[in-house]
């Protein structure tokens, strides 16, 4: 099956956008990604990933919601597309299959006393 490849970081960003209840734009997504992963990430990395995901068709965006602290500049609100949704689900399914294939004993922490 042909599918656009999703990188690890792209997947996280896509998941974050999908999981947003309110309108998602650069700053909120950036904060959430950091919050969820516990990693320090630059804003530019998040921007680049968002645009790339939009180019690939996983996200769409529209402008709006200018505020004073933004100097009157509008935000770009991202929403996930159907294509994006399906991609996330497929990834999840593959993951689940792989998880199920792991024998139970292998997941137990190994103890050794030698």
């Amino acid at each position, binding site marked *: 099956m042909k599918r656009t490849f999703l990188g690890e970081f792209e997947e996280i960003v896509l998941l974050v956008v999908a999981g947003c209840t309110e309108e998602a*734009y650069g*700053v909120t997504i950036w904060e959430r990604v950091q919050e969820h992963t516990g990693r320090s990430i630059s804003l530019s990395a998040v921007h680049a990933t968002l645009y790339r995901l939009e180019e690939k068709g996983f996200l769409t965006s529209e*402008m709006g919601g*200018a*505020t004073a*602290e*933004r100097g009157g500049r509008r935000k*770009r609100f991202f929403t996930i597309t159907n294509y994006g949704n399906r991609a996330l689900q497929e990834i999840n399914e593959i993951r689940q299959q792989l998880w199920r294939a792991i024998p139970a004993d292998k997941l137990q922490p190994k103890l050794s006393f030698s």
Partner: protein
Amino acid sequence: MENRPQPSPPRWIDRLLTAIIAPHFLEDILGDLHEVYARQIKSGPARQARLRYLLAAARYVRPYFMKRKPGSYSPTYIFSPAMIKNYLKISLRTLAKQKAYSFINITGLALGMAVAMLIGLWIYDELSFDRSFQNFNRIAQVWQHQTFNGQVGTQTSLPFPIGDEIRRNYGADFKHVVMASWNNKHILAAGDKKFNKAGSFFEPDAPDMLSLRMISGTRAGLKDPYSILLSESLAKAYFGDADALDRTIKVDNKLNVKVTGVYEDLPHNTSFRDVSFMLPWQLMVIANPWLKTMDDPWRPNAYMTYVQLIDHADIDQATARIKDIKKRNINKEQLKYKPDVFLNPMRDWYLHSEFKEGHRVGGRIEFVWLFGTIGLFVLLLACINFMNLSTARSEKRAKEVGIRKAVGSVRNQLITQFFTESFLVVGFSFALSIALVVLFLPFFNEVADKKIAMPWAEPVFWLAGIGFSAITAIIAGSYPALYLSSFQPVKVLKGTFRAGRFAAVPRKVLVVVQFAVSIILIIGTAVVFRQIQFAKNRPVGYTRDGLITIFTSTEDIHKHFEAVRHDLKANGAIAEMAESGSPTTETWSSTSGFEWKGKDPEQSVDFWFDEVSYEYGKTVGWQFTQGRDFSREFATDSVALVVNETAVKFMGLQNPVDEPMTWFKKPYKIIGVIKDIVVNSPYAPHRPQFFCLSAGQGNVINIRLNPTSGSAASVAKIKETFEKYDPGSPFEYEFVDERYAQKFLDEVRIGKLTTFFSVLAILISCLGLFGVASFIAEQRTKEIGVRKVLGATVLSVWGLLSRDFVLLVGIAFLIATPGAYYFLNGWLQKYDYHTTISWWIFALTGLGTLTITLLTVSFQAIKAATTNPIRSLRSE
């Protein structure tokens, strides 16, 4: 509502970001950045917030954010493959459409490039002379300045003991000190093979110093006094492919030596290229025992000395140390010659070894400059042509530019189009010029006495060639590319466009420059040949025709001299024969020991001097002005002298005949005065010359052939007789007139080369003129048509078109003559015996150039003048 100013991040960062980030990203990114900043400024110090802002902003400097979104119109392609194909196709069509023009343009430029390449290769070869020696930077030759007759002369010959003296007392500066003989011919015999070959005697360090590449044997081969080192080619000549090592060779029919090594031939562009074998110095000393028992070994200067400096020695300091080496060793009375010894470094041997009054004044480097200048000029001519023709032709294409623009061409496409054409023509020219160089190189090598090969594998060559081509293409293409492409299509197409009044001025200037250079070259060539002819016509003071010279290295003929002479005279082969120390065309020795009445005892003199046998005067054809020749009838002639007129003048004698003189304190007497003989340089003034009878063997046998029988038959008879009396020597002879002609080789060579280049320069200029003339005739087609309709004659139209060019050539002539006169006069002044530059050379050159110009222009002018006016007027 807004009551307090929003704290805003540094403006300059925003400005930079605005410039860097693509517009379609800019708004939300900048907004997000500001929002983050606003939060940080609330929670922390402003400085920290600003720093973070800067760091965050810096992360946006990456291609992804910088790349602009393509516009919604389809982009204009300038370098897409389709366009490139189109540029080439159009260029080729343009070239093919104007065949004559393309031919002129490509050939002209190719000729110029080929000349520049040949000259470049020649200069490279000259400058790399001797550089193939590994110790190039450390080798030097010992020279000396001496003062004679009030002038400082500079020479390479030094006394026999100087090598040992340098080693003993000055050795700290030198790694090797090598004494060497002059490179002379010797008979080498091995088995039945016998040749007369040139080689030298060297001290044993020579192979090391010259970093000889040994094919067999070792560089230590000269340590044994009875050994010989052969060059590869000589070893092949004697032993074929067999091993030459340890074979025996007989030198000059008396000395047996063993081959102890074979070395790779020295390259053609080295000072030692004519050394085809090396003999040990020790062998020369053994063969000439008198060398060890000389009364005053520091007096005669006859040997050469080479040194290799130690690695960090400074040559100037070493020179300063050995400067007085001769003064410390010679007799007191010779101090008046003021011998200053100095080291001449190898890098100066070939190009910078001309001295005047004890100072270096140049040398062959002048030719390097001369030809370098000529090469540059010819190239310049070719480039001027190319630019002239390109710009002239391109004006015709104004309409094309208009139409192209009207149908949507953008300026960059036009620029690329014109540059493509220019690059294509230059590319063709470059390829053609390489072909021409390959074609001409053998001929050029022969004329210039070089062995230059095409430097195919040399990156510098390609870099220079391609770099130059690119520059020419850019310069020549820039006018149409940048100027024509700026035309407004409306103006061009409506016909209101007009090239400015001064558009033709640069072209005219270029034509003038071109012809000025050509005229200088023509005059130069004429003067060089006049000078050669002038020197050739100089009275030589003897009869060259029918005189042959045989160099002897064995004594067999000398022992039977009278028998040989009698035999040859009896069978009618010769009129007379005699021995002498030097060949007639040269003088190999000079002496300083003469005293005469009224001579200032402090005066240092140096007279050319030769020992000859009876009948020498009759053999060569001396022309006596006073007195008589040596004669067997006077026993006292063993102390008699024959002198030349210059000697008489120099000594200030009123009645030279019977004038007593002394030579190293021995009494002598002048018996005859002869007309001056041209020896050594045919351009130098005559110098005092003395002859006396020889007690021993001469180096040379001079033979006057019997004028009544054919020279080929006579020479055959001489060969037979010589081989009978001297079976060990190969019979080799030279005609004196040929040997004399060799004195002019260098000048003839320069003459030939300048002729070659001048012809090319003229050809290139004419090609250019032809092109420009055809362009102008075409431009004025309508005007000529109207004139003809109104009654103009062919002649008046011809005059109309030719007048401009004649004027330009006239101006060029006025510019060129003073320049040519200045340079050539300077060149002639270097020769003591030189021709004058007469006005008629200038007149003739001017007339010639004018004729060529008219011929070139007339072809176009008459074609234009005879065209039916209806055809030219109907054309629109």
